[in-house]
């Protein structure tokens, strides 16, 4: 180290010391400024602020916005707000909280969950905030309390609005319901905007469009005395009400569809193939959503939850079923488009398919005697399995998989409902990834008849059918059709999402498939001929999906089997075949045969819809 550097180092240190000390002096001065300010606030102005704090406090109470209403496509109301009474307590005006609660419970029924919730809110809110204790008081309970009111200072009946679903179970799986804001909801919402709100969308449209339905909180600024009584209103910002929604659902169609199911379990989705708008979305059985609004009691909830029929489960978007023979028109189209078959090519079906590759078991047709000479049309009309074993073998799993993916299989459709399942479209890559096993050729064959790993939701089947109906234009399905604009009363329509047009090799192939599907309904040997009508032509395909695998040579005898083990019945259709205006997919759980059980339901829905339209 040279002398120069040492001198330099010494100078630098001196310079730093001076600056550091200067900085410390500035720090001290700034701290003194703070202290002076606090001295001013706490000592010099203490009296003034104490007065402000004690005598006159300015309170700001949130004014919750009115939740938007929900209508069907024809303006029938599906979700409304009705007057409701709730019991509220203002903690700081109640001398003995435990005693008050005890006496209130002797007057009107308040269950433990209400009390628990009340105590939780009590910790979270300010002492002069009004805290709800019980919701949905009956007129009688209101009268009982009113008569005893003098005994309960700080306890009040508040009139408010409660969500009500006038059509109840008819709309439960579409509209969903609102429920009390829970601890876990608090993490996902803007708590400022929900001050004053008690409910939030929990499922269905109420959840997926929560943001537009809820609106924006307003404020009421008031001067209150020491007890928290409002002396005068100083200022107010009115809340901005939530926007009303118009859904694409046609509630008349929805009702007809649900009635058509009778006592059967299952699901149905009907959509407008051109726009992707959902016309009906049914999951059976359903439940009464109004139970959840006021807080469902645990017995009823357990019964709903544990019921083997699973009424809370939205089968239309969450139920994943093997598509069975309803997949055949799509596989057939793949064969034509990819040039693996011509429409006149035929196989001789003897009721069993012996593959070229080594296989332990023969592949059976559902018809033991076989279909004989079978071309593409016949394979669809009579639902010949052997034809599709052969076709699947020619196509191979890779082509089947990528072709079906274009119809939206194996991936959520993107409908505006929460919790949609993605279904399953098996592929070589999928099996390696999920099971760590190679793909076996036998699995290709059963994929060709919609069995094996393949799973689809009724909604996915409806979208795929609509895509077939429109010549390969796949629309994202949507329930929201219009909403009130943010300002004013005008309507804001929600444009259907852009379509996804498949590349088409030959339109004649698509016409061949449609023609064959028409024969399913209108042909003399069609599996759904019972729903044929003179007025318009329906293109359809029946399907059956196995609930459990049959062992070799085992006879399927529906009468001997417990209902729960019977096959699921499926049906897809669109109509009119020449100019499709409705596409339907449905499943009847444990229904047995697609032709006998499922197709009549679709028939009634299609007929009702087309009838209604031509009438109007």
């Amino acid at each position, binding site marked *: 180290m040279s002398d120069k550097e040492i001198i330099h180092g010494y100078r630098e240190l001196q310079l730093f010391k001076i*600056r550091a000390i200067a900085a*410390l002096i500035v*720090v001290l001065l700034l701290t003194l400024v*703070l202290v002076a300010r606090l001295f001013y606030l*706490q*000592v010099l102005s203490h009296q003034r602020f*104490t007065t*402000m*704090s004690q005598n006159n406090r300015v309170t700001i109470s949130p004014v919750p916005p009115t939740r938007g209403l929900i209508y069907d496509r024809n303006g029938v109301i599906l979700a409304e707000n009705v007057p409701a009474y709730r019991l509220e307590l203002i903690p700081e005006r109640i001398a003995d909280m435990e005693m008050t609660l005890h006496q209130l419970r002797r007057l009107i029924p308040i269950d433990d969950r209400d009390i628990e919730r009340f105590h939780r809110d009590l910790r979270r*809110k300010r002492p002069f905030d009004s805290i709800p204790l019980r919701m949905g008081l009956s007129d009688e309970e209101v009268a009982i309390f009113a008569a005893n009111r003098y005994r309960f200072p700080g306890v009040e009946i508040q009139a408010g609005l409660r969500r009500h679903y006038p059509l109840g179970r008819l709309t439960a799986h579409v509209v969903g319901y609102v429920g009390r804001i829970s601890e876990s909801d608090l993490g996902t919402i803007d708590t400022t905007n929900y001050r004053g709100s008690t409910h939030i969308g929990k499922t269905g449209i109420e959840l997926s469009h929560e943001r537009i339905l809820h609106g924006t909180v307003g404020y009421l600024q008031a001067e209150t005395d020491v007890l928290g009584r409002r002396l005068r209103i100083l200022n107010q910002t009115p809340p901005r009400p939530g926007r009303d929604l118009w859904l694409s659902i046609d509630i008349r169609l929805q009702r007809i569809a649900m009635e058509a199911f009778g006592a059967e379990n299952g699901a149905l989705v009907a959509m407008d193939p051109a726009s992707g708008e959902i016309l009906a979305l049914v999951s059976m059985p359903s439940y009464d959503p109004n139970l959840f609004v006021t807080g469902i009691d645990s017995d009823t909830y357990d019964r709903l939850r544990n019921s083997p029929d699973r009424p809370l489960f939205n089968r239309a978007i969450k139920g994943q079923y093997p598509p069975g023979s309803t997949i055949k028109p799509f596989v057939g189209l793949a064969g034509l488009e990819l040039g693996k078959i011509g429409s006149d090519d035929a196989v001789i079906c003897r009721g069993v398919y012996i593959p070229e590759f080594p296989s332990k078991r023969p592949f059976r047709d559902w018809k033991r005697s076989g279909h004989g000479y079978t071309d593409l049309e016949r394979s669809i009309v009579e639902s010949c399995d052997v034809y599709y074993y052969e076709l699947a073998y020619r196509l191979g799993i890779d082509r089947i998989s990528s072709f079906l993916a274009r119809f939206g299989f194996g991936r959520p459709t993107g409908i505006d409902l929460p919790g949609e399942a993605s279904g399953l479209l098996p592929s070589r890559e999928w099996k390696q990834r999920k099971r760590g096993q190679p793909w076996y050729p036998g699995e290709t064959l059963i994929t060709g008849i919609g069995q094996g790993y393949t799973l689809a939701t009724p909604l996915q089947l409806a979208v795929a059918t609509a895509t077939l109906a429109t010549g390969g234009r796949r629309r994202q399905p949507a329930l929201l059709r219009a909403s009130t604009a943010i300002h004013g009363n005008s309507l804001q329509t929600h444009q259907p999402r852009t379509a996804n047009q498949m590349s088409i090799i030959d339109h004649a192939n698509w016409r061949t498939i449609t023609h064959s599907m028409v024969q399913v309904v209108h042909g003399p040997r069609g599996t759904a001929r019972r729903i044929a009508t003179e007025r318009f032509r329906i293109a359809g395909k029946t399907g059956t999906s196995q609930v459990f695998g049959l062992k070799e040579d085992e006879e399927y005898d529906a009468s001997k089997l417990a209902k729960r083990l019977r096959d699921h019945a499926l049906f897809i259709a669109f109509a009119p075949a020449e100019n499709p205006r409705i596409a339907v997919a449905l499943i009847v759980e444990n229904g047995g045969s697609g032709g006998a059980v499922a197709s009549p339901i679709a028939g009634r829905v299609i007929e009702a819809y087309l009838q209604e339209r031509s009438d109007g």
Partner: protein
Amino acid sequence: MAEPQAGNKAGPVPFASADPHRDRMLQRLHIDLPLLAGLMILSGFGLVILYSAGGQDSALVVRQALRLAIGFVVALLVAQIPPHGLKHWTPWLYGFGLLLLVAVLISGEIGKGAQRWLNLGLLRFQPSELMKIAVPLMAAHYVSRFHFPPGPRVIAISTLLIALPVLLIVEQPDLGTALLIASSGCFVLLLAGISKRLILSVITLQAVAAPLIWYFVMHDYQRRRVITFLNPENDPLGAGYHIIQSKIAIGSGGWFGKGWLNGTQAYLDFLPESSTDFIFAVLGEEFGLMGILALLACYLYIVWRGMQIALQAQDSFSRLLAGSLTLTFFIYLFVNIGMVSGLLPVVGLPLPLISYGGSSMVTMMAAFGILMSIHTHRKLVST
């Protein structure tokens, strides 16, 4: 040759003992006991206030205590890195941070109308937090390569090094953090001894630039905050309500306060804020001016110790870094207390180590870890 240092040259410090064995032990663990003790007392005090401010929610206090514990572990881990190691990695850290800031602007997740978070799969990360450390590191690293006081070229380049991330953060927009980072960089230059004339002219320039910033840089919500600050009664329903309420809370506290858990005004309008940014108002109401003075004493003690570490540091890089980090810590608390007591506009900075919340606390603890590292990695050169 080299021996661990026992005792202090710059005057007596509480918690420093004459026990050479214990001191050697602490040095080996790279713990600076005076600093650590100050931080612990402060955060303990903070938990007590938080219990009241959070509506006596013990789960909230436990979560905060856990966060603090993580913070202390981070501080101790950072303290193990010797200053020359930090110095070595500084340009990389700075460059990495800059890249992340650009990434945030391009693909940042939008939260609260501002792009601050970068989603790295499992981890949500705020690159501006990294920059709170990286900018003073980089400035100190660059400036310390030359003799003090720095020449015009050095000043120009280091200004560029500071301004680049600051502008990117302003763009997010996060004015509060940008100001903090800018000041941490400026502290490096100030401590390095740039001329007084330059300091004065920068201040003048700022006065001129203020209206330009107002019209071209600031967002609507930021402008509203300033207007509200100048006249809180203007917007008594929004942010003005915070200030009015927090002034009432502090003012009604008086000399000795209303007592722990006895505050009424501190239940401010927006409940979340009373345990985060406005927690100081709870302290003022329940513990009065005496409580506030105790807190300020605690803070000043930490600042004092930090500056002492800076003064005793053995190379200019460590010196500048320690000084800058310490002074930035002071700016933090000054801005927050100034804001809550109505001296400064509401900029949304937490009260360091007291406010509920974690993202900036870990960064702050890392900074204290650096201070400890600087102090405990010193070597005494025998002359």
